[in-house]
């Protein structure tokens, strides 16, 4: 083990955080690069985990606590790795960092956001709301430093923001930077994006506002989310009284994602519990090809036993607006009949697409863009960039990635 060179960990979601912390706590230096202004990735935006139905922020807080103590982790947010050269033990990489326009004097007191009237689309809340142009993504945002979306902010507000900050933390002239680093190992943990279900034309995604995806459902149900946890349908803010979960929205479909993402069934079962808790009288449907609940059978059985929930082996053939409601046309595979169901909102269980576009290195991927583990080539993929996985598997894999990085050092 030569400890001279740091490990580069690319991606600050659950995978990247876990790998970085494991190495750091062993005394090894790490450079952690995250493209967005805050860490936590998808997990930070989840309302609850299956099957325990516990808040992800509980475990994230422990991880952030570990990060606060980790003096040997250099964190770059709003950053991308644009060049990778060399091989295991001796890489040279280029990291491009965008300006945050808020420096480390920020105390997160919030005076800037109070002074700012300009708003931007809230990507953390899956576009279900707006934030101020200078913002923290969530009450748990890490690092605890505001970020300015300068393009979304009008000139007058820029001046007000700067004036509101007593600590000289707003730096409108900040420029991005380009760093060159020498690293011993690289762990690629850039995660996934949800499949763009608008490509499955017959599901109405993109045209019908009340057809949302599973990540949006997480934000809708979150007490700290845009609706305070009330299940309000996007079109008119009505509290939903019926919801349909559409499984395999593009998954297990040769025209879209041929593979199964493995977690969407459990995610929908979990989200069914959100609906049943927030609106106990609501009627819930789940249409699926197979329910793939993995080892959490009892969780599945609990949801299955709920009288307000109808789980149907059936394929959704179309979603249309029908007056005030959405109408789903479903081929019920068990009865062989075509059925129609009217609901207030439909949740598309979209699968995982690996974030492996524009890789700065020559990668071995499978037909779907997932990175293959090829240790001779050096770069160590981990988490959902490697294969679809649930959070526990991602943490397990990220710990293994730390081991592989240790062996390369």
């Amino acid at each position, binding site marked *: 083990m030569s400890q001279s060179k740091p490990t580069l960990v690319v991606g600050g979601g659950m995978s990247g955080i876990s790998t970085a912390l494991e190495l750091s*706590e062993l005394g090894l230096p790490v450079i952690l690069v995250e493209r967005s202004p805050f860490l936590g990735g998808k997990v930070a935006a989840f309302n609850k985990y299956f099957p*325990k139905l516990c*808040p992800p922020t509980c475990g994230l807080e422990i991880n952030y606590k570990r990060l606060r103590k980790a003096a040997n982790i250099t964190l770059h947010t709003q950053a991308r790795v644009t060049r990778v050269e060399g091989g295991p033990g001796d890489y040279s990489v280029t990291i491009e960092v965008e300006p945050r326009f808020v420096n480390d004097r920020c*105390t997160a*007191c919030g005076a800037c956001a109070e002074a700012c009237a300009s708003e931007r689309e809230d990507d953390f809340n899956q576009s279900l709301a707006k934030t101020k142009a200078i913002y923290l993504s969530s009450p748990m945002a890490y690092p605890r430093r505001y970020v300015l979306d300068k393009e979304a902010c009008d000139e007058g507000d820029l001046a007000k923001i700067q004036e509101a900050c007593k600590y000289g933390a707003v730096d409108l002239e900040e420029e991005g930077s380009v760093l060159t680093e020498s690293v011993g190992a690289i762990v690629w943990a850039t995660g996934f994006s949800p499949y763009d279900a608008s490509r499955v034309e017959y599901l109405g995604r993109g045209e019908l506002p009340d057809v949302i995806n599973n990540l949006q459902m997480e934000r809708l149900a979150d007490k700290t989310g845009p609706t305070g946890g009330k299940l309000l349908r996007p079109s008119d803010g009505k509290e939903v009284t019926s919801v349909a979960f559409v499984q395999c929205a593009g998954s297990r479909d040769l025209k879209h994602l041929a593979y199964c993402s493995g977690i969407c069934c459990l995610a929908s079962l979990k989200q069914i519990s959100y609906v049943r808790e927030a609106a106990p009288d609501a009627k819930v449907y789940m249409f699926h090809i197979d329910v793939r609940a993995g080892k959490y059978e009892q969780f599945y059985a609990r949801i299955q036993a709920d009288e307000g929930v109808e789980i149907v*082996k059936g394929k959704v053939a179309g979603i249309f607006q029908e007056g005030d409601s959405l109408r789903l046309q479903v081929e019920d595979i068990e009865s062989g009949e075509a059925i129609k169901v009217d609901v207030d909102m439909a949740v598309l269980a979209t699968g995982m697409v690996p974030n492996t576009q524009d890789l700065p290195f020559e990668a071995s991927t499978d037909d779907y863009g997932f990175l293959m583990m090829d240790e001779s080539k050096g770069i160590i993929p981990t988490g959902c960039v490697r294969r679809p996985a649930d959070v526990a598997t991602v943490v397990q894999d990220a*710990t293994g990635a730390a081991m592989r990085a240790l062996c390369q050092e």
Partner: protein
Amino acid sequence: MEHKIGVYICTGCGIGDALDLAAIEKVATSDGKAALCKTHECLCSQEGHALVQADIDAGDVDVVAVAACSMREKQAELSWGETWVERINYREQLVWSHEPNDEDTQWLAEDYMRMLGARMEHVTRPEPHIEEMSDRVLVVGGGISGMSAALFAARAGKEVVIVEKEDGLGGFLRRVHRRFPVAPPYQELEENDIQATIDQVIANDKITVHLSSTIGKIDGAPGRFEVTVEGAGAKETVGSIVVAAGFVPYDAGKLTHLGYGEVKDVVTSVELEEMAREGKLVRPSDGADLETVVFVQCAGSRDPDHLDYCSTTCCSVSLKQTRYIREANEDAKTYVLYKDLRTPGQWEIFYQNVAKDGTIFVKSEVKSVAAGEDGGAVVTVQDVLLGEDVEIEADLVVLAVGQVPACQNEQLLKLGYRQGPELPSIDARIEIKEGDDEDEGPVERKDEVTGGFPNSHFVCFPYETRRTGIYAAGSVRQPTDSVTAADDAAGAAFKAIKCVALQSEGKAVHPRVGDMSWPDFALQRCTQCKRCTEECPFGALDEDEKGTPKPNPTRCRRCGVCMGACPERIVGFADYSVQSINSMIKGIYVAEEWEEKPAVLCLVCENDAYPALDMAGLARMKHSPFVRVVPMRCLGGLNLQWIADAMAKGFDGVLLLGCKAGDDYQCHFIQGSELAQTRLGKVQETLDRLMLESERVAFHEVEIDSFGAIPGIIDSFMERLEELGPNPFKD
């Protein structure tokens, strides 16, 4: 204890505008025991940092007490090398949660200074506990997981000892014919290449392998486990352990309803592997060719009478085995009878490929399996799609059996731990004994909701078991396939290495990574009540023959449950003890009755409830200023003495905010919150003795994201106290 405390009040973020700083300074340098007290408009700035550094350099200060934002903020900026830093939360939980320039807010701010002075009288800097340590790794099990763990640990430079009960390495894969595809295009079966891994292990001079051996006994603790290896007759000293004992197939003897043991041509998926390996893919009854083969999925799985979970691999195994049948006889008919066909991830592609072979998939319930007239079997199924019963005549019926973790059937570790020889599963709980009956041992409640797999935090921290330095990997930890198992072993090996690396510097492992403090026992005052040895969630304490605890600091996670358990108050950490918190409670100024100002002590879990309080402050939600917050490592450290003392001192109430307990617990120390609630059950006696109402002490479970509920919890508690009227013990 002699400290030179420097109190530094940050006046930024609204703190300076909301408080009378001169008055606080007076309290800080009197009751607060501070040598000096200074203010700065932005302590986290370079200038602020330099102000403090100058005092440290001049030798005026050896403890820096920062009254500013929460301890969860600005840790890097508000640190001065190795200097001891105390944090007082004047921002989130003071000026952001209470009315500015209000006498009650001011009083709260001054009380926090008094609590600082009182605490510092009873704390010292933790001295790490350092022992001579071995960094060798013991791997229990020489299958794919164990060999993978061993190879990774060896690559990282560690010596490894593998103990394998069979006469050769390879584990379950020795019995497997071929493996399902693991790489694109997920079409062809893979050769079973386990021998290559076995050869690597044997050739590795860092790895010692004991075959035909089992663990006779493991004594000691991380860094110094003494392992007796039965069979090889060896003694090994190791620092940490990876348990990779794999699984055993579910006992098909219990599947008579599926014809096993009664119909000759019914075999398990494991037996089919062996038939394929030996090239004997024929009817067991008469050696006839296989024309029709039926695979029965979930044979004993997803079944409350057998295994109530899904082993996640059996569907893919059956798909693979349909290929064996077709390779032997390309005209063979194969049926897969399933509830849900489960091929997550890229296995789905393999499923699509196999589906093209012509296998017939039937979503169905198997009603019976009977012997056929001329051998073979007749499977009667209810075809769910057709809605009717169908009979299938088969030459062979293959039952896809699930995985049972090896630890369910045998003792693997035989730990010489007072709390038992094996890794507890996630749902194993220790019940606190209610009375003082000395003979009543701990009761393990085991409801096996997760099939007995050992773990403690299976979502966020999947490697954390309840035995420090012992990590499970592969199918003993969860049902898994061989590729995932080998990956899993990499993580477990890392954890094993890291545990010893940290412990050798006296540092704790998860979740208080790096904590140098450890519990000290004043054993001369021990009454051998055994509460601490029973309640430790991590089995850290052994006992001598009299029942006196024998601490093992390297097994300890520093939660403080032992400290809460001890009725004699003899357990404490250098910087966290019954006395230090007691002193804080005593330091709080309790108003006299005529002042009509209630006093409430609020003991808060620092992992979830404390951040939630911070976030309530961030949202500028207000709550009663009469609540004094004392953070705790875990509420499992709750000592009832504090409640008795607070009540005797005239506090009107005690509010405890802890994590969710129960089967879906959120406590990072497994049972701390539950233990605190159980202990509170006994506080009634204390309150009765003082003639006080039981409602004066309340426990609330607070999830970290439920911060919006906190003001309501506090306010309704305050309302109830008001109805009860003041504590008559007030002066």
